[in-house]
């Protein structure tokens, strides 16, 4: 390899140990159609438990689409049709008898642009637990809110102004608020769709630290444009291209010795 190629390849720094045990999410032959357009073709994937999995790939390759399949957010798009099986803990989430609302309580989501509710910080966090009946009293609810904010590393910054409106925080704080909101309902999986793309480097660093802490308790799937970020935070990586999965594997291997030439080209910055 020439020097520029080596220099361009990002170094994986996250802990290389892969957790043992059955994968949390198993996807088999998933195809997604937007009206006539075939957006995802025969995607099969295992997502490990209590680890961070990164989806990388150029724009429009289908990573966000696949991510949204996992918590069935694509159901809100009328023209979208999903074929294939996705199982979480060996339970098919596209089974008609499954309650989608319960699914979304188990599989949380953080979006690209921070979207706190235009309510108070307290209300933002408390909304989820309240509608799912997770707290029996106000004291318990206060406890849940505090725990969520602590886990999201936001507690110290907002503990004196819980009644202030959520939209009055800075971008990075808003995104951490959204993460706290997602954690508050105690999900098993957290899906993150380019969570740092709208943030500055310092806020991004804070969120990446957070992700590293969270993975001890949650399964995290992160879609990212930044390969450095994928290398930093994830243990497994999947590379998407034009609606298919080109390669999956441990992050270290993908970034140091990928099997597929397309992966190689993408990582070294030849396209995308």
């Amino acid at each position: 390899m020439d020097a520029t190629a080596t220099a361009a390849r990002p170094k994986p720094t996250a802990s290389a140990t892969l957790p043992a045990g059955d994968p949390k999410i198993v996807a088999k032959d998933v195809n997604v159609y937007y009206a006539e357009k075939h957006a995802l073709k025969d995607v099969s994937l295992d997502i490990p438990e209590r680890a961070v999995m990164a989806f990388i790939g150029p724009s429009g390759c289908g990573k966000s689409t696949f991510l949204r399949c996992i918590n069935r957010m694509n159901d809100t798009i009328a023209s979208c049709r999903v074929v294939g099986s996705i199982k979480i803990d060996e339970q098919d989430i596209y089974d008609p008898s499954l309650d989608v609302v319960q699914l979304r309580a188990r599989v949380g989501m953080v979006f690209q642009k921070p979207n706190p509710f235009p309510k108070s910080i307290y209300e933002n966090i408390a909304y989820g637990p309240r509608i799912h009946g997770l707290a029996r009293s106000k004291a318990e609810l206060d406890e849940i809110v505090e725990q969520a904010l602590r886990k999201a590393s936001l507690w110290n910054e907002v503990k004196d102004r819980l009644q202030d409106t959520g939209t009055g925080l800075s971008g990075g704080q808003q995104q951490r608020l959204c993460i706290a909101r997602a954690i508050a309902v105690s999900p098993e999986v957290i899906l993150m769709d380019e969570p740092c793309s709208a943030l500055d480097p310092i806020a991004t660093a804070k969120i990446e630290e957070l992700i590293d802490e969270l993975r001890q308790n949650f399964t995290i799937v992160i879609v990212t444009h930044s390969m450095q970020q994928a290398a930093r935070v994830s243990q497994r990586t999947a590379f998407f291209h034009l609606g298919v999965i080109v390669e999956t594997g441990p992050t270290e291997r993908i970034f140091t010795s990928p099997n597929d030439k397309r992966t190689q080209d993408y990582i070294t910055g030849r396209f995308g």
Partner: protein
Amino acid sequence: MTEMTAVSGLGHRVDADEARARVRKRYRAEARFKAYGIGAIAFAALFLVVLLADIVTKALPAFTTTHLVIEVPVTAESVDPDGSRQAASLARGDYLKPLREVYQGFFPEVSGRAPRRELNGLLSSGAADELRAEVMADPSLIGRTVKTRALVSDDADLYYKGVVTDVVEEQGEAVATPSATSGDVVVTTATPAFADDLAEIKSELSETARKRRFEVDRIRTLREGILSDKPSAELALREARGGGDATRITIAQNALAKIDSDSQSLQAQMETLAGEAADFEARFKDSGGAEKLDEKLPSRLLAINGGIVKITSLAADRVEGVTLTPLKSQDAAQPNAWKLLTYETPENSRRVNDQQIAWLETLKAKGVVETGLNWGFLTSGDSREAEQAGILGALVGSIFTMAVTLVICLPIGVGAAIYLEEFAPKNRWTDIIEININNLAAVPSIVYGLLGLAVFLNFFGMPRSSAVVGGFVLALLVLPTIIIASRAALKAVPPSIREAALGVGASHQQAVFHHTLPLAMPGIMTGTIIGMAHALGETAPLLLIGMVAFIVDVPTSFTSATTALPVQIYLWSDLPEVAFQAKTSAAILVLLFFLFVMNGLAIVLRKRFERRW
């Protein structure tokens, strides 16, 4: 002068002068645009100010009303026929008779049925209402003398407000001596004090003659126009006779006959007016001597020695006339102790004649006339008598109707909008529904009245002219507006909020009701304000469901017959009495105030719901 040029990023040469000229042109264009905007706002504001000023000045006479303060002895025979002092008996008592007796006592010289009726005509038929209310509230007043306020009639009220005629007062400059204290009187002055007035009368004669001539010309033109149709009418008759069709012949004959009779009556009018004009001109030409005054000329009254004389003939140093109220003495009156009053509107053009004016002036001199704020306008219902008519019935009716409208159309409208926007499947049927709702918003309101008549009144048999039916009809009218505005408000909420809610595990219904709906509230409130304001002012549908009836009582329930503010305005604007004109404008002000309050409330609610995202 050296020309400076610059080189732009792409290497073109940019002349600095040109650039400056372009900048100046841009500034000018912006200033022009701003001026247009300010001009448009000023124009609209001007119209608004003019409209409001017009309404307020027209309504001013209705804000005050006139009472006579009279002490009436209340006897048991007249007010308590059963002698029981119970409410049932007291209500049947005659309060007007004792009041009238005291009132007529102010003018003991008035006798005979016709003059008495003229005198009584200055009091309202409801003059004794306050007395009745006082006695019924406190029966211990029976046997005592009660000081009460008696409402005057609408014509008297208008006279006191100066609406009936303009008055010119002149203090007497010379010593005036009357020849008698009642009946026919001749008042002579030492110097020709009435010379100016004589000249005035002359010019009045000439003016009146001129007006008559003008009128004659106008009628002549009219008559010629009618006569010009005669040849074609005669031709039509000949043709009809030729055709032999009996109906056509009759129609043609009738048309011809009408032309003839119209032209004849116009001819007669012309002759009368021409005669009057000639008469006035003759009197005008006849200089010197006395001038006779009649009801076609402005009236002149002489107030002297505590009485009033109506002048029938005026010369430079003497007037002849007849007393309207008796003089106290025949002594000579010093300068400035007597005055001459000229009433600009001739007697035959007003509803209050000179005799009544004399009585009204005498009452004012006695100090029994009291003018105050017209609270009765806001506390009484409608009436045929202009001075007693009030807005309360219509106001309460409007409030009830609006309440029914709001209760029906707000939940249904917002619910329909939420369903159509969030939950309904997007297919052909919902498209058709949406098109129909948009069309319904543009349907003329009178069609909703017809619908109300056919469905609510005839089919369901709901009580006619009630607030319930009015509210239903107006709710139908307003519903499309609210649905459209609510849908737009819901659409405007950013989808990221809904996604966030769904991501946390809320169901679609929870996401809509907990998040989307509160954020759409300002837009929904705006749609509601617009709709309700629209409904408040709608008259046509209410007319068709019978709310045009003359209702005196203030409505007590949603099903009792009632009228509404816009209908009341419409009814009053049609009535001939002058007093109703001011009341119409005052009613418009009440309607505008109600609208203002309603909108203000909605704006306060909207601000409370408003959030920034």
